[in-house]
């Protein structure tokens, strides 16, 4: 029993799939934002995994640096997205991006 690149990448792909599911299926602005956060996190995990186990291990700090950038970008995206969600809520009194489904 071991934990290597494949295991981390499978988990990263599952996390990305959960985020894509939230983005495509759900119509709540908050849940869609959480979905994009999960996709960002999945990308960061894949970078770190390649830096730890894959060919990128020769430059291990590069993977961590990219994951750091991805996390900061995700937080910035969350800030602007939540401001948009607040505006949607002020207009419609719910977080639905579709007027019909909500």
């Amino acid at each position, binding site marked *: *029993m*071991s*934990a*290597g*690149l494949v*295991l*981390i990448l499978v*988990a990263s792909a*599952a*996390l990305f799939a*959960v*985020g894509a599911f*939230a983005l495509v299926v759900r119509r*709540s602005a*908050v*849940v869609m934002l*959480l979905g994009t*956060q*999960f996709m960002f*996190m999945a990308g960061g*995990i894949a970078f*770190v*995994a390649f*830096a*730890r*186990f894959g*060919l990128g*291990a*020769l*430059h*291990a*700090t*590069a*993977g*961590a*640096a990219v*994951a*750091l*950038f991805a*996390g*900061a*970008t995700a*937080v*910035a*995206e*969350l*800030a*602007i997205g*939540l*401001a*948009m*969600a*607040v*505006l949607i*809520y*002020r*207009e*419609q*009194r719910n*977080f639905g991006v579709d007027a019909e489904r909500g």
Partner: protein
Amino acid sequence: MPLIGALPQPITSAPVVLFIYLVLILMVGSALASVLLRNTLYAIGAFSASMVLVALLYLTIAPFLLFAFQLLVFTTVSAGLLLGLLRETTRLKSSSLGPLSREWIIGAAVSAAVLALLEVIIGVTYWPVRICCSVPPDFWATVTGAYVVGLAVLAVLVASAALGAGLMLSMPRGGQPRRVEPHVPERRPRGGGRQP
């Protein structure tokens, strides 16, 4: 001389492998719960839990600095933003309890106990020292040398996001929310006469 060095071996230590499996399963499960839960507060809680689990995953496979950033900065900022959203949308502006009520005193005591415990843990484990001393020596050289353009772009991006979010939140509220009125057919008087 080989062009590419030998690849690092997978982690084989049984406790660490079990820990990684557990963290990955809980991470995907909490992410799924965050997406599927209808209650916004529970969804935010599940999201924060998955962020903490990502930090724990980084603790096992990444430099300690990334774990600290993920746990202390990204998780805290994300949870704070989401709770700010809840506060804005549910009008939790002020508490109806007095400042010296029993609930506030109990909450302050619990908070003080938790902070004291955190202080003890930090003091015992030398977290700040570990954070600054466990960073690989070429990490900051990599960040500020190879990724200087990315760093500048990131600074502009974060500043733009903060400015945009501030501008949007400071917009004046546009009156009453839009309501959909039920369609009522117009009644016409019998005989087509004119009403007074």
